[in-house]
């Protein structure tokens, strides 16, 4: 324990081009870029599949199949195979981001798909029946109703990405994973465990931020009433 505190408490470890602050920004940068790319691919695709009902089987198999692929192996193969063809700074970064995106798409896709798929068919029918065009039905009804599951897909993807971005240090990238890999190399357990603690805290914080955004973005009407005590109390008995 004291090793961690010693390492965390040393101001020299926080600043500089390989300090904690820079590494945290790098880590968030990888994760943010990856999430953005995978959301841009996964959400529209998932919405389309949910809206049209085409390709459900693909989603289910993709999600189950990708879960069994060991991320570390995939990362190494990508760097070894793609790296030499890219060269320079991109040699490590691009393969890593590609792998992260590949890993993040399935949960995001599945969330968006399941979200649209779970929309009450009666609500969709009513929307069409009152004259909404297909795009309106998607944007005004299906997407808002799918938000809870879209968010849950994004949150699992975010955790997945933060965890895998930690591994990226083993292919010479930055991020908080550096402290774990370098600490291991220098037999500096304080640095390793300190880095691990930072990664854990970062993951929890990111999840909390997502939870807060979700709370703000999702209509209260979609939160189960049982978890809303205050509202349950307001419910007056009414025969109709």
């Amino acid at each position: 324990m004291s090793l961690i505190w010693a390492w965390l408490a040393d101001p020299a470890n926080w600043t500089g081009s390989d300090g904690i602050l820079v590494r945290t920004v790098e880590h968030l940068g990888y994760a943010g870029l990856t999430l953005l790319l995978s959301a841009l691919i996964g959400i529209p695709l998932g919405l389309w599949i949910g809206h049209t009902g085409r390709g459900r089987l693909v989603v289910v198999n993709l999600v189950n199949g990708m879960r069994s692929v060991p991320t570390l192996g995939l990362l190494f193969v990508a760097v070894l195979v793609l790296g030499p063809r890219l060269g320079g700074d991109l040699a490590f970064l691009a393969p890593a981001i590609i792998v992260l995106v590949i890993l993040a798409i399935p949960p995001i896709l599945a969330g968006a798909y399941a979200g649209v798929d779970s929309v009450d068919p009666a609500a969709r029918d009513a929307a069409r029946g009152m004259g909404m065009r297909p795009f309106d039905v998607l944007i005004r009804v299906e997407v808002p109703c799918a938000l809870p599951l879209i968010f849950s897909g994004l949150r699992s993807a975010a955790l997945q990405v933060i965890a895998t971005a930690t591994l990226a240090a083993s292919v010479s990238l930055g991020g908080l994973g550096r402290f774990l890999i370098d600490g291991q190399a220098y037999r500096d357990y304080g640095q390793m465990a300190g880095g691990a603690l930072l990664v854990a805290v970062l993951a929890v914080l990111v999840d909390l931020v997502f939870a807060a955004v979700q709370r703000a973005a999702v209509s209260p009407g979609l939160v189960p009433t049982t978890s809303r005590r205050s509202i349950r109390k307001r419910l007056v008995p009414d025969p109709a």
Partner: protein
Amino acid sequence: MTWFLGHLPQLGSLLLTHAVLAVIPLLVGLAVALPLGWLAQRYRWLRAPLVAGTGLLYTIPSLALFVLMPLVLGTGILDPINVVIALSVYTVALLVRTVADGLAAVPDEVVQAATAMGVGPARRFFTVELPLAVPVIAAGLRVAAVSNVSVVSVAALLGIAQLGSLFTDGFARDFVDPILVGIVACMVLALTLDVVILSLSRVLTPWTRRGRTA
């Protein structure tokens, strides 16, 4: 292919270690999650803190958890126990919710019918509620099994030998073959565990296979 054939014995031992490191946490995790899930279902107020608490542990990235384990356990950084316990934690995190959901999905009439026939709470849990929750619990266990197999390989970065070692060795030597073999072996192991759990679940719940499909 030649690499694969030339290293079969080594592959076998790595696979075995990998399987042990992935399966023990499943058993430990299930053993812990069952009572916790039961508590979460029996005492509703416990559900939110239990699910949220274990969910919090689940957010911690695997490599970080492996590294932090020695702090909690007092073990050495290379001790495979770290991996076993860390994966058990993940398994518990995943299963507490599943067990609670599975038990909650048992039809109330069935539980009440059992109670009305004079079946005591403990007996009722093991002879009625738990068997009926098996399909849901098994589904959670399959997810945990498959993701455990993938996560175990990360421990290779810390020098704990298993299939993941093929990744680190291959990467260090700039040699793709062992990595590919390792990936395939991992996926085969994951698939095998998946099939085993699915089959066990089917054997344990013969009523789900006959008559009307639920």
